[in-house]
């Protein structure tokens, strides 16, 4: 399997934040979720991929250097940013006439079909759109030139569950249309990723904590619930983090099956990605 994005040891220094040697890949045909707290480095990583900021290290998109082939690469990428778009004093119809100048394969019919599908008015100023409508418009714009790669920065934040679900369906359809396509999606709404992501990359304070297949995370990881006495018997190397609750200990383990065999503790819950993230951030070791 080829990689749509290859990131090797990228670093970036800000006075109050540092991105430290980030490396991961986005394989073709896959959805990779980038998770982490606000300010963990997700958006910085996306900006680095798009060459909006300068970083050290190597970034290849479609096998090409992202700085040297910047324009060529961007012709095959669709981007959705949570906090930025073209002016709000434009209409969806205006956007069509602008975008056809940027993309040779801009598909006007497809774009207006999406607008119709999403119930978006063509002649209304974007400033009068609701948050959900704005996000749907950004998505319609991002996929109307049939890009090989979608980069999405918080595409579902601030949206109600129904619209979020609709949007996730769009991404599912998009990736199913062509096996060469890929999506990199940063979000802090981790439940969205449980449904669609193939891999999860967790960034915390500028470091990658883990980069694992979603299935492995959800199937193998476990939250052990035990007493203080039971917890004291667990070897330090056999768990990732623990949390001391009012009446019990909660322990995050990497392989619940191995753990069960070794310690004979039966109460092991299946964690959500959010649980795992919270253990890494708030748990102790």
């Amino acid at each position, binding site marked *: 399997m080829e990689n749509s994005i290859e990131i090797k040891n990228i670093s970036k220094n800000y006075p109050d934040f540092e991105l430290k040697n980030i490396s991961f890949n986005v394989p073709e045909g896959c959805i990779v979720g980038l998770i982490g707290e606000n300010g963990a480095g997700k958006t910085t990583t996306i900006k680095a991929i798009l060459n909006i900021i300068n970083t050290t290290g190597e970034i290849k998109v479609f096998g090409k250097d992202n700085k040297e082939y910047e324009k060529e690469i961007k012709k095959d990428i669709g981007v959705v940013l949570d906090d*930025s778009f073209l002016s709000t004093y434009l209409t969806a119809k205006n956007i069509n006439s602008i975008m056809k100048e940027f993309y040779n394969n801009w598909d006007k019919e497809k774009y207006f079909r999406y607008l119709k599908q999403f119930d978006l008015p063509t002649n209304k100023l974007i400033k009068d759109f609701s948050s959900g409508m704005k996000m749907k418009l950004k998505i319609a714009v991002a996929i109307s030139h049939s890009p090989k790669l979608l980069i999405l920065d918080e595409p579902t934040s601030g949206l109600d569950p129904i619209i979020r679900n609709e949007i996730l369906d769009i991404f599912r359809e998009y990736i199913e249309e062509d096996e060469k396509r890929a999506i990199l999606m940063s979000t802090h709404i981790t439940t969205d990723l449980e449904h669609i992501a193939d891999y999860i990359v967790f960034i915390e304070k500028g470091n990658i904590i883990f980069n694992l297949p979603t299935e492995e995370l959800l199937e193998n990881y476990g939250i052990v619930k035990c007493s203080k006495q039971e917890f004291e018997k667990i070897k330090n190397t056999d768990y990732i983090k623990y949390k001391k609750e009012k009446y019990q200990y909660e322990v995050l383990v990497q392989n619940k099956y191995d753990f069960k065999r070794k310690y004979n503790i039966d109460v092991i819950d299946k964690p959500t990605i959010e649980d795992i993230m919270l253990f890494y951030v708030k748990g102790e070791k």
Partner: protein
Amino acid sequence: MKEIKGLIKKDLLNLASYKSTLIVVIICVCAVGSMSQSAINYIPIMMTAMIGMIALSTFSYDEIAKSNKYVLTLPTNKKEVVIEKYILVIGCIFIGAIVGFIITPVIIYIINYFRPENNMNIDYNLLLTTTIGGIFGISLVSSIQIPSIYKWGAERGRIQMFILVFGLIAIVVGIGYLLVKANINIDYNVLNNFLDKFGLVVLIILSFVMLYVSYKIAYKIYLKEEN
């Protein structure tokens, strides 16, 4: 080049919301200019200033929508983004100058038609001088303002620009004061003769030089800026 066209389209479509304001401004400028023979000669300057400055307001639109970040995700780069702004500003300055140059004789004809007793004359030399003067003035302001906006943003950039303009005026006045103080006499006849012969050409060349230097500075600033 197609990408620059896309960026220009984006800015022009943004400016479309200015249509009615622009018509009102043009009518007001014409009304003020038609009051006297001396005032009418300033129509090209006012028109160039109004239309030229409107182009600069696209920076505010970009800032409100944070569109600079989004634009850089499209198949373009920082160099094209800066070039587009200068093309837009230069285009607007020249459109303003041409509108001013054409509209002034039209107003004079209309006034003379309705008020034949106060016949106004068309001085094409003066008209050309004020038009090119307008181009130079707005080019100077834009040359200072665009890099200021890239450095400090649309709002703060405007304040910084006024500080810079006043600083420049203070320097010129200061030099004049020092020349008088040091009893250095300038032969103004030589200067006037030179300006009569080559003044307009010099102003046009200077306008382009200023805008080119300004572009270089703005690009350098924008290249370092991280959205």
